[in-house]
């Protein structure tokens, strides 16, 4: 096990220790034990920058299930490292923040931190695994730890709802991706991502390519809350705010982005990929920002904003993938889009992380997140206000914050897309910049709503539970760090461009950027009077206009039919699933044994009948039959008549007697077919059975057949005739297909010679097949025990 592996699973290992730490150091907030870990890991991963900057990678392998090609391979390359740094860096800040946010008296800190560590480890595993199966395992672990974190306050109905929803949707995606992984594996024969990328040509030309691609994208889209799977994210806001800041803005939701970026080299050669990723991304962008505007809960605004920002990154990745489709860099023509994606990924983590923390502070200090109750907080919490301004302005794409830079690049990418000629991009491509711009307007709008509705306007103390004041320092440090990052990156973007962005790009577009000099990222503040600049100015202008006239046009949202809301669709879908299943199940599981038997017998008749017919198996061969003798016919007649008469018997006694007569006739058959042992046994057994019948049925009421209707009888008759016919037909065919001599000859020869007996049947019973007999008497013994217990042991319900 290398140090790298240890780094990946160290959060999981620490999670095991948490219960002990929590139990024995009650006085210390459990979070303090956690804090060093992400910090140290962050430092550890920083070292790798020098490696990835050279275009090198580090790879370590521990064999796991090598027979299936599943090994725990950790690979650090530009993309993985970028994410690892995000996870550990923001992780450290979130842990610090949580120490002040969660009260050790009121909350179960041990479970909280176990979940958090599980998540952190899982996330590191996702971004650093080179083996798809291991990646998938960690992927599901993120879903589960997210489920647990969302349901942390599980006494709340909404928490449970949100947890279930997020789990269902993300696990659905995970399974789809698993299917994709397996399909991919059946094409390439490997689970290693590195090897798969090397084989991307074969993948693209495989007939199953599109299916594989879609399955992978389902995984990525659900995790990254892309339209229409985004509905889980707003409900996930039931989690404690540190969790939202960490999982639902900075890391987990980015796992989908990671996946798309990671698989771009494999899939991006096809236009489908470009279309789907860019298309879904842009729709998500628009829908998220559009929906965010109508929210009144600060966290909900941020949730929809996250959805929309993720859509933006996704669409950029899709647009950039075209570079691979064309197989050339073309002067960074499409690479700008990928660069923007990676860049915005970082930016989003900074400003959204800080905004979530700000929201947490507001919630913590005022007791509400409802913007209708808030207002004028500027005076009470100036630092928080400053942080919020930085965060929202960056989010809205206002210079000089980092969001502005990536937004500019985003417009560039979208404008480029319109010029592509994949599928129908030449005709529909023009929609991309238009939607992008519209969405940016809404982004601007909700950013303004967030900051100004909360911090400016009228202070409404009567609606608040407590008097607001500035948050404790510990709680402010993490958002301050993030906000300053947003500013620093905004001013000096090249701090990260060479160290983080270029190596990541190299991982996303390996074939194009093998030569490390091929493309160096440089981010400029000023491009000249480009269309992008005018678009930004337009966004701000229209945004301000819309903000001022907010009350006049929000009716638009009410016009949107509630019935078509995706949430409604999910809820009713789930309800219908349960109810429908219940109805279906109740429909056939009637509890009537007769129904079950009808199903069984019908299946018996149909399956065998169809097989007989379809395989043309029915055969009739008279050559090998014993002659029929008179008294045999008589016996057959007696038996048939007795059996059929039972059907019409009206009294229980008659039925039993007729059954007995069938049994005795069977014994006679045994006589004429030369089976003396059988005849003896059958006679005695039949007698005992009849006696038992009489004993048992002495207590049962007379047969009442009046309740049986004609249709009922007719159905039964049909089924029974079918059964009889099938049994006969197979018997005839089986008899006519005798292909081998029975092994019985051996018994005839050896019964005396080797077993020292003369009665073959008996010798078979006690010697050749004595084992059968032993367990046959065991069956009898068990039956006796059962009968004894059944009659003697009578538990009443209370004793159960």
């Amino acid at each position, binding site marked *: 096990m290398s140090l790298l592996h240890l780094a990946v699973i160290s959060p999981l290992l620490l999670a095991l220790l948490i219960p002990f730490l929590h139990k024995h150091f009650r006085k210390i907030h459990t979070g303090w034990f956690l804090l060093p870990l992400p910090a140290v890991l962050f430092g550890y991963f920083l070292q790798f920058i020098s490696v990835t900057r050279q275009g090198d990678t580090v790879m370590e392998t521990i064999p796991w299930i090598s027979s299936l090609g599943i090994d725990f391979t950790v690979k650090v390359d530009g993309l993985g490292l970028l994410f690892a740094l995000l996870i550990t860096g923001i992780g450290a800040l979130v842990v610090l923040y949580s120490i002040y946010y969660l009260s050790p008296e009121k909350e179960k800190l041990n479970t909280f931190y176990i979940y958090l560590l599980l998540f952190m480890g899982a996330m590191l595993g996702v971004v650093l695994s080179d083996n798809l199966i291991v990646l998938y395992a960690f992927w599901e672990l993120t879903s589960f730890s997210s489920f647990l974190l969302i349901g942390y306050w599980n006494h709340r109905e909404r928490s449970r709802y949100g947890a279930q929803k997020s789990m269902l949707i993300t696990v659905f995606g995970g399974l789809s991706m698993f299917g994709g992984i397996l399909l991919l594996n059946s094409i390439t024969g490997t689970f290693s991502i590195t090897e798969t990328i090397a084989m991307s040509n074969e993948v693209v030309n495989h007939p199953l390519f599109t299916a594989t691609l879609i399955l992978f994208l389902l995984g990525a889209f659900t995790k990254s809350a892309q339209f229409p799977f985004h509905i889980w994210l707003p409900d996930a806001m039931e989690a404690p705010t540190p969790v939202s800041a960490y999982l639902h803005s900075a890391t987990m939701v980015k796992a989908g982005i990671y996946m798309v970026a990671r698989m771009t080299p494999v899939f991006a050669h096809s236009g489908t990929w470009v279309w789907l990723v860019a298309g879904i991304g842009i729709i998500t962008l628009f829908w998220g920002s559009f929906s965010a505007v109508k929210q009144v809960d600060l966290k909900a605004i941020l949730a929809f904003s996250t959805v929309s920002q993720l859509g933006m990154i996704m669409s950029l990745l899709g647009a950039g993938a075209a570079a691979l489709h064309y197989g050339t860099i073309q002067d960074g023509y499409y690479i700008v889009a990928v660069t923007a994606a990676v860049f915005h990924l970082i930016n989003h983590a900074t400003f959204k992380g800080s905004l979530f923390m700000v929201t947490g502070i507001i919630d913590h200090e005022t007791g509400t997140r409802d913007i209708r109750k808030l207002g004028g907080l500027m005076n009470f919490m100036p630092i928080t206000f400053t942080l919020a301004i930085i965060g929202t302005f960056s989010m809205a794409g206002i210079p000089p914050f980092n969001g502005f830079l990536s937004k500019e690049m985003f417009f560039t990418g979208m404008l480029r897309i319109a010029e592509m000629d994949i599928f129908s991009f030449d005709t529909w491509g023009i929609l991309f910049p238009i939607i992008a711009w519209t969405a940016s307007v809404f982004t601007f709008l909700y950013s303004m709503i967030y900051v100004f509705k909360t911090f400016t306007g009228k202070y409404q103390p009567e609606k608040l539970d407590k008097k607001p004041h500035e948050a404790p320092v510990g709680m402010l440090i993490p958002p301050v760090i993030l906000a300053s990052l947003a500013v620093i990156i905004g001013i000096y973007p090249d701090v990260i461009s060479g160290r983080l962005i270029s190596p990541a790009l190299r991982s996303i577009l390996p074939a194009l950027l093998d030569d490390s000099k091929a493309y160096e990222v440089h981010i400029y503040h000023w491009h000249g009077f480009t269309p992008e600049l005018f678009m930004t100015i337009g966004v701000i202008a229209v945004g301000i206009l819309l903000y001022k006239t907010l009350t006049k046009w929000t009716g638009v949202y009410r016009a949107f039919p509630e019935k078509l809301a995706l949430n409604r669709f999910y809820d009713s879908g789930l309800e219908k699933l349960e109810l429908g299943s219940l109805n279906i199940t109740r429909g056939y599981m009637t509890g009537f044994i007769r129904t079950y038997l009808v199903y069984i017998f019908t299946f018996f008749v149909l399956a065998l009948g169809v097989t007989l017919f379809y395989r043309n198996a029915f055969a009739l061969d008279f050559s090998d039959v014993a002659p029929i003798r008179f008294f045999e016919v008589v016996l057959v007649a007696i038996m048939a008549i007795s059996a059929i008469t039972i059907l019409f018997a009206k009294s229980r006694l008659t039925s039993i007697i007729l059954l007995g*007569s069938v049994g*005795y006739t069977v014994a*006679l058959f045994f006589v*004429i077919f*030369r089976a003396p042992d059988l*005849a003896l046994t059958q*006679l005695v057994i039949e007698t005992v059975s009849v006696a038992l019948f*009489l004993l048992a049925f*002495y207590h049962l009421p007379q047969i009442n057949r009046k309740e049986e209707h004609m249709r009922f009888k007719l159905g039964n008759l049909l089924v029974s005739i079918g059964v009889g016919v099938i049994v006969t037909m197979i018997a005839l065919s089986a008899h006519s297909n005798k292909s081998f001599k029975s092994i019985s000859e051996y018994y005839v020869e050896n019964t005396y010679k080797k077993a020292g007996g003369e009665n073959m049947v008996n010798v078979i019973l006690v010697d050749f097949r004595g084992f059968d007999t032993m367990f046959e008497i065991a069956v009898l013994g068990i039956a006796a025990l059962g009968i004894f217990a059944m009659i003697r042991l009578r538990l009443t319900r209370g004793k159960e």
Partner: protein
Amino acid sequence: MFEAILWISVTFISLAMIGLIFRVIKGPTVADRVVALDAIGISLVSVVALVSLLLETSAFLDIILLIGILAFIGTVAFSKYLEKGVIMEYDRSGNS
């Protein structure tokens, strides 16, 4: 000749059995049925004897005694059932 006799006898007994079965089915009382069943049991003895003769084997002769025993036990059980409604009493000395 001998075989012919056997066949005739088989026919006789077969006919007899059919008659007895008729009685079993018809009743009218349970006692009638029991009587007929008893007779069937006894006739079965004859049938088995005849079959043994026809098949020229002594393998089935044990069955004869067996049927006799069973028929007897059966009849006793039946008649007790008829008479008392129970077949086995737990304690006869008591007022069962």
